[in-house]
């Protein structure tokens, strides 16, 4: 059965490495729902690429086997299935509204523990952290209240417990 899987890939941070990973995924016919990437070890120049993709366990395993074949890839793992990973995302959400709608958006943001990081008389920018589902829910609620713009980081994920990737 197809479902969303989050894959973490540790790579040598060298020129073109992101293009290699992304090119392989699209070249072999898979799709990416979200993507985030940053260097996570400044000394040994290792980057962590996290992406969410749709597929069943077998196709994800094949994709991971292909990723591991890339020379700069040190490790690739299905965080969702193999590690019951914790997934978080951050979003910046702009709501443009006045009057009752403006008050309601602020009230709801409080319930979601979103922070107001910019405001004018007729707008807010909220900063919100949480699971992708929580962010989806917040965006749904803001839509009728004057949702204007959304920027999301894409999912980052890490395994539970003491084990290291």
């Amino acid at each position: 059965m197809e479902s969303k899987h989050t894959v973490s890939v540790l790579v040598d941070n060298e020129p073109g490495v992101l293009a290699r990973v992304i090119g392989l995924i699209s070249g072999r016919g898979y799709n990416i729902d979200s993507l985030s990437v940053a260097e996570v070890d400044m000394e040994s120049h290792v980057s962590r690429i996290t992406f969410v993709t749709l597929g069943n366990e077998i196709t994800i395993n094949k994709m991971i086997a292909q990723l591991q074949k890339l020379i700069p890839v040190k490790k690739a793992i299905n965080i969702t299935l193999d590690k019951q990973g914790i997934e978080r995302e951050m979003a910046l959400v702009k709501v443009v509204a006045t009057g009752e709608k403006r008050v309601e958006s602020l009230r709801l943001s409080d319930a979601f523990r979103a922070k107001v990081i910019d405001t004018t008389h007729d707008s807010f920018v909220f900063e919100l952290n949480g699971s992708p589902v929580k962010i989806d829910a917040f965006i749904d609620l803001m839509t009728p209240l004057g949702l204007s713009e959304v920027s999301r980081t894409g999912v980052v994920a890490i395994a539970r417990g003491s084990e290291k990737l």
Partner: protein
Amino acid sequence: MVSIQLTGAEMVLQAFEDHKVDTLFGYPGGAVLPIYDELAKDKNSIHHYLVRHEQGAAHAAEGYARASGKVGVFLVTSGPGVTNAVTGLADAMMDSIPLVCISGQVPSHLIGTDAFQECDAVGITRPCTKHNWLVKDINDLSRILHEAFYIAASGRPGPVLVDIPKDIQFQTGTYIGPETIKHKSYRPKLKASIDKIDEALKLIVKAQKPVFYTGGGVINSGNAAVQLLREFVRLTGFPITSTLQGLGAFPGDDNQFIGMLGMHGTYEANMAMHDCDLLINIGARFDDRITGKVDEFSPDSKKIHVDIDPSSINKTINVDVPLVGDVAHVLEDAIKLWKSNVYKVDKAAVKNWWSTIEKWKEKDSLGYKNDEKTIKPQYAIQRLYELTKDKDSYITTEVGQHQMWAAQYYKFNKPNRWITSGGLGTMGFGLPAAIGAQVAHPDKLVIDIAGEASILMCIQEMSTAIQHQLPVKIFIINNQYMGMVRQWQELLHDKRYSHSYTDALPDFVKLAEAYGAKGIRVESPAELDKGIQEMIDYNGPVIFDCVVDQNENVYPMIPSGKAHNEMLLGKGNEDSEISDEGKVLV
């Protein structure tokens, strides 16, 4: 530790020396002139072979690599030099051939400005190389060159490309020798776990209807792997079939060898694959030309798969015992374990299995009706084989019907003698590959079995053969059709031969003469042997125009979307319906 000051161009030549490269194929251009300049000054032993098109350089390097077991090296300029090389890189990627391509690039400060003869070489070649690099700092160059040779040749071999901007070729920096360079993370696994090998051997002990299915991985693993495979297969007494790329790993005229398998494999090989209860895949990758319809592929067998590439395991066919490792290492451990545990096969069952196979053999699936007036293409290959088999010849091919007939009717008893484009199926491969093979073995007979359509795709390399005195023989099976296209149109498209007939072919005899080679044309079976002998005896390149029956098809054939036990067996069996799902497959 070697650490000397050199220019970028000097470093390239120094790296060649350090990696024992004495042969180079290439074509000069603006962005590689500094390296070419070093080649002119070079007093060492590097032989540069000037091709006539960069695709030819890539295929020649492939032919050289496959005939010699070494890494093939070639040198091209920026822009069109690189784009012309792409087909060869993709070909080597599909067939796991170790190549190092050095490409020139426009100077660093012009990269990204749409400069003259600029292209994004690493971007374009990323999916068709095992790895590639754009060199941005002269002090990275020696490390990158050493990594390039290491990555190309180790693990599952493949092509790599090093793109060097012209200013880097001129700059001076520190060259560090190869002995201290180790890649940060790339370490292919060579040995499989002993427990897994033992699990595989226990399946072999129990097997009633086993078959070995071996591929190019055995040949890539090297001569030790070939010897160990032969020992292991003889130890068990099991039948063995081979993929197109694996031919020669096991002697083609041995009794245990039941012929090539797959789309144009023998009846007995495909039936054995379908009916077996144990399938032992050594160095092959369950390619779609082998499996036919995946759902009905070898339905009742346990499967063992030896492959150095973990991503090949369970890619298209799920296996019971995966053995990830180098063929030679795995077989060495397997044979040791087999002997020390005093394992024995079920001889009675295997004998029964052989008698089933013998019955299949009686179908004589490679049989064809010979003719006295026109040359049958199968007969032409058979005669070529009979007249050259004592000569340790090297055979390359183009792609199409002639390639399949060559695979079916030419028997290979040694590895590295059979050089063909399998995965990518590149028309135009055979002539430059033959040039590469001839460079590797100057005194051996090298024949490109070609079609009249394929040969025209890289015919310009005739000049290369003449210039460098490489006596390659081009044996054209000339049926005036793109034969395999015609065959598919006959079977799948109601005989509408859309654009598969070639009008206005050149006169191949005159063409040979125009290049300074010898041309021979034979049109009747009676003259065939004499013509072939004349070709063999001539000391120089020959184009042999063998005019054959225009309507022969390659049989047996597993039509698209069919299973192994649904083969078409030549004349009289052609009416079998091909489903609509089958027609969309290639």
